[in-house]
């Protein structure tokens, strides 16, 4: 499929969307983010083709991805003026919106193909008021989804908390990495977190086989337990942990049918695909890739990062499709901030503000969502955000996860229109 075809199909899908939704029918490229942000009514549970056992995957791009060299406003003169050393040339990039002059970095070809297949949307200029340029502090804002609260809880965790009375939440959220991200920490529900599946088990098993048998004996009970006793509570958790460990490790040991690239994000998404295929009762998977803090000589580095991202996501959706689970999975990808409009003297970019978010899956609004922030109307050299990231969370929570976004985010946010309604 050529780019031109991809573009046309995206346009078709977008206009089809405009007809079924109550959103205004102005041409997409002229539509302001405000009209795209119209409150949606939610996907009804009875909608055909929309499964009930829905999964959300969150991909964190740590370090501050350079949004301007990811979703490239080549049609804006100021792009080339500010970035003479690192700009992507028009003929190299992948056209997305020729009218405004927006294209994708050449490494994102797999994602442009997903746009063409109606599987990828790109939310432009996502950020929040009074942006913070510290990695940790800004990441905390994205994780908590609330700049005011400081309770050590994240938006996914709070969403999972709301399910706690209704279902077993032991495996509701799985995060891959050495520590549970703040986003996934609820007051009650904590994620299952592991870096490698072999670490999600007792390591004493590797020492001597005799130990496994005794360990299993010590960590199970057939007696009815009084969980007001802390020992019984821990024993119950230990038994849950054994079951979860076995299910998870059994799931990730399955070989995928798709060839995944050999990189960190792909390894994580390969595990996620296996766990989805194994139908674990998991609603949210959280993965991360780092390295986006490109202060110097960023061109080759950034191309490699985007390549890793795009190839991994593409393989992930191929696998989901091949195993028949594609329609169950929506994925969002974010970074804690974008970078400054003007490049620095080391052929890199420094910490900035707004940037694009990606959404993937059969049910997302494909193509560009919202408008690109101006490169002239800046806030001290930084982009002004167009869409609050919590509007994206709200869409996903209400319309995909069926979890009340107002309760989760502490406030009602307009939906960002990232899902087909």
């Amino acid at each position, binding site marked *: 499929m050529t780019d031109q075809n991809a573009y046309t199909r995206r346009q078709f899908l977008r206009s089809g969307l405009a007809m079924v939704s109550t959103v205004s029918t102005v041409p997409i490229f002229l539509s302001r983010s405000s009209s795209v942000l119209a409150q949606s009514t939610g996907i009804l549970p009875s909608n055909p083709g929309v499964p009930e056992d829905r999964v959300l995957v969150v991909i964190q791009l740590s370090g501050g991805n350079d949004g301007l060299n990811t979703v490239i406003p080549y049609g804006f003169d100021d792009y080339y003026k500010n970035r003479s050393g690192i700009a992507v040339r028009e003929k190299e990039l992948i056209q997305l919106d020729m009218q405004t002059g927006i294209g994708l970095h050449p490494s994102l070809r797999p994602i442009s193909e997903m746009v063409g297949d109606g599987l990828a949307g790109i939310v432009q200029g996502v950020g929040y008021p009074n942006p913070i340029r510290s990695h*940790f502090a800004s990441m905390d804002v994205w994780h908590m989804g609330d700049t005011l609260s400081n309770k050590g809880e994240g938006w996914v965790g709070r969403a999972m908390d709301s399910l706690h009375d209704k279902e077993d939440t032991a495996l509701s959220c799985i995060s891959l990495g050495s*520590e549970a991200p703040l986003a996934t920490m609820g007051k009650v529900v*904590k994620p299952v977190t592991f870096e490698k599946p072999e670490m999600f088990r*007792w390591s004493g098993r590797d020492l001597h086989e005799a130990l496994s048998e005794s*360990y299993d004996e010590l960590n199970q009970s057939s007696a009815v337990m009084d969980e007001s006793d802390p*020992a019984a509570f*821990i024993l119950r*958790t230990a038994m849950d942990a054994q079951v979860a460990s076995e299910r998870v490790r059994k799931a990730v040991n399955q070989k995928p049918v798709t060839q995944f690239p050999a990189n960190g994000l792909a390894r994580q998404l390969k595990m996620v695909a296996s766990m989805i295929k194994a139908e674990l009762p998991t609603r949210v998977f959280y993965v991360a890739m780092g390295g986006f803090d490109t202060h110097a000589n960023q061109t080759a580095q950034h191309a490699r990062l985007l390549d890793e991202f795009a190839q991994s996501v593409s393989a992930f959706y191929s696998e989901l499709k091949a195993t028949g689970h594609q329609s169950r999975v929506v994925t969002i990808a974010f970074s804690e901030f974008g970078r400054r409009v*003007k490049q620095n003297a080391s052929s890199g970019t420094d910490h900035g503000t707004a940037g694009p978010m990606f959404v993937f899956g059969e049910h997302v609004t494909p193509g560009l969502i919202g408008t690109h922030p101006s490169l002239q109307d800046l806030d001290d*050299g930084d982009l002004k955000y167009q869409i609050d990231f919590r509007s994206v969370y709200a869409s996903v929570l209400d319309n995909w996860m069926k979890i009340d976004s107002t309760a989760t985010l502490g406030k009602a946010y307009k939906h960002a229109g990232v899902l087909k309604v």
Partner: protein
Amino acid sequence: MKTSLSPINREAFGPREARHLLLRAGFGAGPGEISTLVDAGLDEAVDELIKDAKTEEPADLPKVDPDVVRPFTQDEREAFARARRENDEAARSEIRRRLNEQRAEDRRMLGELRRWWVGLMIDTPTPLREKLVLLWHSHFASRHRNVRDTYLMYQQNQMFREHAAGNFGKLAKAVVHDPAMLKFLNNDQNFKRKPNENLAREFMELFTLGEGNYSENDIKQGAKALTGYHVEDNDFVFNENRHDDSKKTVLGETGNMDGDDFVDVLLDQPACPRYIALKLYRHFVADLPDYLDEVPKENREVVERLALMLKKNGYKIGPVLKRVFKSEHFYDEQIVGKKIKSPTQLVIGTARTLGTPTRSTGTLSDGLSAMGQELFDPPSVAGWCGGRSWINTSTLFTRQNVCTYLITGKDPRQKKWDRKAVNYDPMLLLAGVDSRESEPVVDHFVGFMLGDHTPMARREPLYKFMRERDKGVTKDSLIGLLTLITAMPEYQLC
């Protein structure tokens, strides 16, 4: 449950009590220290613990450079202003590059600070002191992520150490003068003309009174009192020009109060000793809800009495702890072995109790983070919740695996394990135990690792494991036994 705070009978202070005291007033200890404490007797044991907590200085200090994060010099400030005025992106970028280098160096130093504290907790002759530092770190919680200055976090940590078993009133005063806290709660931006309420609010809500014991207006007035409490370089500075010297009324008290006077008003509130007594009680005695109203009646009565004592002693911590550590209540069977170990208690306690090699303090500190207790970065200004919030399916495996790491040297992140890495002989812990039969040996370890209250049925799989070892009780079979005991649910309790 016994709720009496009268001391137990002197004769009743045996290995069970000594073990409990060492776990709760410290991180735990092996059979040698337990019997030394029994010999010393209750009074001397407790009195020494409290005395030590006040006097000893840590021997080795971490390599933390006070100047890694520093304010701009006059020249730099001018250069920065000029670059900004003239929109000189190259010059601005250069400044940002230098700042980034500073941050990277500061984060490296943070790792050093964490490793230092982990090492200190393992080696210190005064564990009660470190246990109190940990309490104050969680009570007056500041986060490096927001403060972004390792040296200030180190200073704060030393300040907690200085006041550890001292006087809560003095500690609270020190906290409104503490640069890390002033930065963390934005009091460095609290000006007469533009008050910032963050520190005043948290001081009442989380540090002294608890929710519901003050009004929004008290916060506004308190914030005024705290104006001008700022930071210059690494030190507290009272910025008189930025201080609001007008009359304020906080909780019914009126005067031209400053930040110290504000703290005095809070210390005079009846809610304050109650709130602090509950904090002490939750840290040393039992896992309870953090609101007194939700605490079971029997425990609440004890907390109320401790609050009175705290008030009567002018907020001195030592006498209150002394009373607790000698009391019938403290040694009641519903208290002993019923508290969930914090990750720090678990890791430091395992190293101290078993006398394992320290291994890598970096790996241990990473382990603490994975278990949810990232030192110098508590989850929020409310500190760590503690109790059951420590335990879930992931943290439980991490807890077990870090213990395995201490005992065997097997890094939980590596599949491979070299037997030579063990470098540890638990046979040394059998000193004074004559028998080499499975049962008495297992009972000995269960006794000091899990407590004598461990039921027979729970010991059975351990006996069986030991009986089935061809060579009987050896270094290797004991290593196996220890990894099993540390992987038992009961080992998570103290």
